[in-house]
């Protein structure tokens, strides 16, 4: 069974399943997570297995889903709420920022909010308007939260296990573009991945690409065949961010390209530049570059391929940063 290659949807499902068995306080709640198993089938089968005390189809109200989860967590449960699409977490931010992220501070650690907010994130699936947003920045920029984004089945499994054992609220973005696009071996009853650690998705010496989520796969595809040795840092944990991994890679390569789906201005690329400035500036051999979503609203499906970073744009940036 462990040898079987599974998708990210299955991997998250497995992590949830195992953690629900291990920890009876884990509860899943959200719109359509029960009978339907989630609109992407991530929670499929869990209602049947754990019953409707622990897997709950809620009314359609994101701020209440998050806010009720805050109460559940303080009350000793470990809620995992699903927000059907990350764009609709806007409705929940009024609970996440003022409450989830602050209860520990507010009470000097005496009341805490260990909960997980899962949401499919990003574009690439020819979806309706508002179903392709990448809104990680506002969560990363909110102290008190842990923000994770896996890039494939194995990391999704390991990070979800970590999320379910974390002591604070974890925002867990699932790059829906790769929900079923990658199959990997994933352990059964495996270990959590550490929070705050990036992985080297591909080692190299000439250029560092820092990226996360669906753009890890895309970056790998983009640099395949380029006459350049590219190191790809898969960030995985957006906050806390693996500062040392970024710095170490850029010290080695001297060149940085950041790739993200979110709009360019105010995106996390800037943060990564800042980390490099703090600890690897003198190792830079060329200006840092970024390949991002454009500073426009995410378009409807006909134009999404023109919006998202594609292999051409990534390859061009790598080539340019080598020339600079």
């Amino acid at each position, binding site marked *: 069974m462990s040898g079987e290659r599974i998708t990210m949807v299955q991997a998250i499902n497995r992590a949830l399943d195992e953690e629900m068995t291990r920890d009876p306080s884990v509860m899943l709640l959200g719109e359509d997570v029960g009978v339907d198993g989630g*609109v992407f089938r991530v929670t499929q089968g869990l209602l049947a297995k754990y019953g409707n005390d622990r897997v709950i189809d809620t009314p359609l109200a994101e*701020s209440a889903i998050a806010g009720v989860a805050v109460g559940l967590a303080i009350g000793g449960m470990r809620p995992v709420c699903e927000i059907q699409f990350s764009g609709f977490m806007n409705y929940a931010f009024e609970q996440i920022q003022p409450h989830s992220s602050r209860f520990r501070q507010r009470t000097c650690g005496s009341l805490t909010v260990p909960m997980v907010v899962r949401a499919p994130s990003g574009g690439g699936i020819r979806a309706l308007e508002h*179903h392709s947003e990448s809104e990680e920045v506002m969560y990363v920029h909110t102290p008190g939260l842990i923000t994770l984004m896996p890039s494939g089945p194995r990391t999704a499994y390991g990070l979800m296990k970590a999320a379910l054992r974390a002591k604070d609220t974890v925002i867990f973005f699932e790059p829906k573009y790769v929900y079923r696009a990658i199959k990997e071996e994933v352990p059964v009853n495996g270990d959590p991945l550490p929070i705050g650690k990036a992985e080297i998705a591909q080692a190299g010496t000439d250029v560092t690409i820092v990226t996360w989520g669906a753009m890890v796969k895309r970056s790998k595809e983009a640099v395949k065949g380029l006459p350049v040795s590219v190191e790809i840092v898969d960030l995985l944990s957006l906050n806390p961010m693996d500062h040392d991994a970024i710095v170490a890679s850029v010290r080695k390569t001297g060149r940085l390209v950041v790739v993200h789906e979110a709009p360019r201005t105010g995106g996390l690329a800037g943060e990564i530049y800042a980390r490099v400035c703090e600890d690897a500036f003198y190792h830079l051999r060329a200006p840092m570059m970024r390949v991002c979503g454009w*500073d426009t609203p995410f378009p409807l499906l006909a134009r999404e391929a023109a919006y998202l970073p*594609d292999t*051409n744009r990534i390859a061009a940036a790598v080539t340019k940063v080598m020339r600079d």
Partner: protein
Amino acid sequence: MSKESTEPQEGWVFEIPPRLRFLDEEGALVGGAEPPMSDAKAVELYGHMVRARIFDDRLLKLQRQGRIGTFAPSFGQEACQVGSMAALGPQDWFVPAFREAAAALYRGAPMKSILMYAMGFEEGSATPPGARDLPVSIPVGGQAAHAVGLAWAMKRKKDKGIAIVFFGDGASSEGIVYESMNFAGVLRTPVVFFCQNNQWAISTPRRIQTASETIAQKAVAAGIRGIQVDGNDLFAVYAATKEAAEIGRSSGMSTLIEGITFRRGVHTTADDPSVYRTKAEEDAWVKRDPVDRMRKYLTARGVWSDKEQDALESRINAEIQQAVAEAEAFRDSDPDPLAMFDHTVAEMDPYLARQKEEARAALSGRAVLQGATAQKKQGGSSSVVGELQEAE
């Protein structure tokens, strides 16, 4: 004001009147009911319902063929949509959610536009100048507030229009819908809050959406009128909306109308209702179908025949064929893949303009427009809104 003292009060009673209905499931007028419109008008509105249904059905086929993207059918909800919009006029604002193709068509939205939108082109939801129609609103519930603002703007301009906003039973749980009704109550901005209670919010049944016995009674919280109607009865919907609009126009009072109906089809083209509801439930609603009911009524009155039905259907099919051709011609006319830059803000700043140039250079002639032109991949994909890439 007595409310603001601590003096004892008598207590308060709130009533939601019996569900309004003109036609029974066989299309017969219920005891003593007078039809609220002429036969000619009824025939006309019936035509609109049929048109919406056939169009809807065609969209489903186009989606299955990979010629359009995800959409949300109005199948089964035609009476709610045509009946309500027929009670209003062009001076009134129409604020849809995302399942109101039947209402939009009645309002005059070109089929071509709806198709272009479903193909993934924003051009499909450009509002014609002067039209008081908002585009589809995907985030559930948010549009309710827009209706209040539009009604308020009209009130400020001493313009006699009102606003109608559509939302679902699921949306009735969103705080913004309550907040909007509460604002409308206080501001006396006349809005018809039309809740199409189609029994389901994706897989979530009405029963676990709220513990309130009706959705109509949520009006009590906002101090506005609440009424429930048989949403599969065109006459009931029409009469209730007309009354709500009249009250709104004359007094500023808003009304929440709950139309009891059923989403006969999929939530969207990527949904599979068999996972969460029974065939028996679906069948029970077949005999309550709003279009069939009206046809029986008109036939019994002798103002409609199979021959007329055939003629109507061929007219509609021809219209659809024409619209599909036009929309596909648009798609094939090489629309600018970078149009999103042009409508981000009124004045593109230099940095955005520079991005557009970068984007143009990155395309370097490659065809990246997708959507309607891409081949539909089949598979176990179960997203309600899009299509997942599948690993080997």
